[in-house]
């Protein structure tokens, strides 16, 4: 079965954080052969003035194919890890959404969009908690972490939000020039788009930057590029600054 895991607000100022927690959970899933995870992603949420002093307003998620018999052991393990990795003053939340058990996945997707726009109320969140196919856990603090965790799971489900954890490595790294086909064949990237979201042909050349990040678009690992204004290579991987919208 396919699950979507959302994690929010286990950030520690002295290191670690929800991104590392998500990476650890995917590793454990794989190593124990409980399931096959996809890479974790970071999702930007609404910047409410009241959240300023407490946290970065982002949440993490990943999807995975998991064998049903391992679902409960994974959920127990995930709860323990998120609780352990949260700082005493944080509001950690965890969500595991099982799409095939949900009567209407559009509900969590719509909820996630509303969280991203800063429009969600606690009552709406309470209504989401009771939905079939959703396992929702308030693991520390005032419980508000479940808002971001639900949103992260929903945004991941859209297939059109977030930036993946880790940096893409290919060839000799910074300055290496590869064709689109070489990138697709030798990395997890599935498609390459320019910043106008147009697909780049497989014979086009791309200069790899120093810090190459991959984003989630159309349910695919997507590498974003921008034009160099040169004949060769025609494209350069998009910078951190350019990708801040994802």
């Amino acid at each position: 079965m396919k699950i979507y895991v959302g994690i929010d607000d286990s950030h520690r100022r002295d290191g670690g954080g929800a991104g590392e927690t998500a990476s650890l959970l995917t590793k454990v899933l794989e190593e124990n052969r409980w399931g096959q995870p996809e890479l974790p992603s970071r999702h930007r949420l609404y910047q409410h003035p009241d959240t300023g002093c407490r946290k970065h307003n982002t949440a993490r998620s990943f999807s995975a194919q998991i064998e049903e018999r391992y679902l409960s052991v994974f959920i127990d393990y995930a709860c323990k890890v998120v609780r352990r990795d949260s700082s005493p003053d944080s509001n950690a939340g965890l969500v595991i959404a099982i799409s095939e058990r949900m009567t209407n996945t559009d509900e969590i997707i719509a909820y996630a969009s509303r969280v991203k726009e800063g429009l969600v109320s606690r009552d709406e969140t309470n209504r989401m908690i009771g939905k079939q196919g959703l396992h929702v856990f308030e693991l520390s603090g005032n419980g508000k972490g479940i808002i971001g965790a639900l949103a992260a799971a929903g945004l991941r489900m859209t297939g059109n939000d977030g930036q993946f954890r880790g940096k893409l490595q290919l060839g000799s790294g910074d300055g290496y020039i590869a064709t689109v086909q070489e990138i697709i064949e030798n990395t997890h990237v599935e498609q390459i788009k320019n910043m106008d979201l147009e697909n780049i042909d497989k014979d086009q050349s791309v200069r790899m930057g120093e810090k190459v990040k991959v984003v989630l678009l159309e349910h695919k690992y997507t590498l974003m590029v921008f034009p160099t204004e040169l004949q060769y290579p025609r494209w350069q991987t998009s910078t951190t600054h350019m990708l801040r919208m994802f």
Partner: protein
Amino acid sequence: MLVWRESELGKYQYTGGKEDWEEVIKIAAGCDEFLIDDEDELVSDEDRSCYNCRFRRWTKESFICMRSE
């Protein structure tokens, strides 16, 4: 120019907003407490920037610096 304004929380909010990319690089260069954040939280191409610092907390218009002083 006033760079920081004291917020209601007793910490300092940057008055230059979220798109003052060059200036926050200069501020971070002179800051002894700069600490780069988790890779997922970086938004500036220049690593040493207040916008990439573990001690910044985003607000609607800008960010608050949570460093100890």
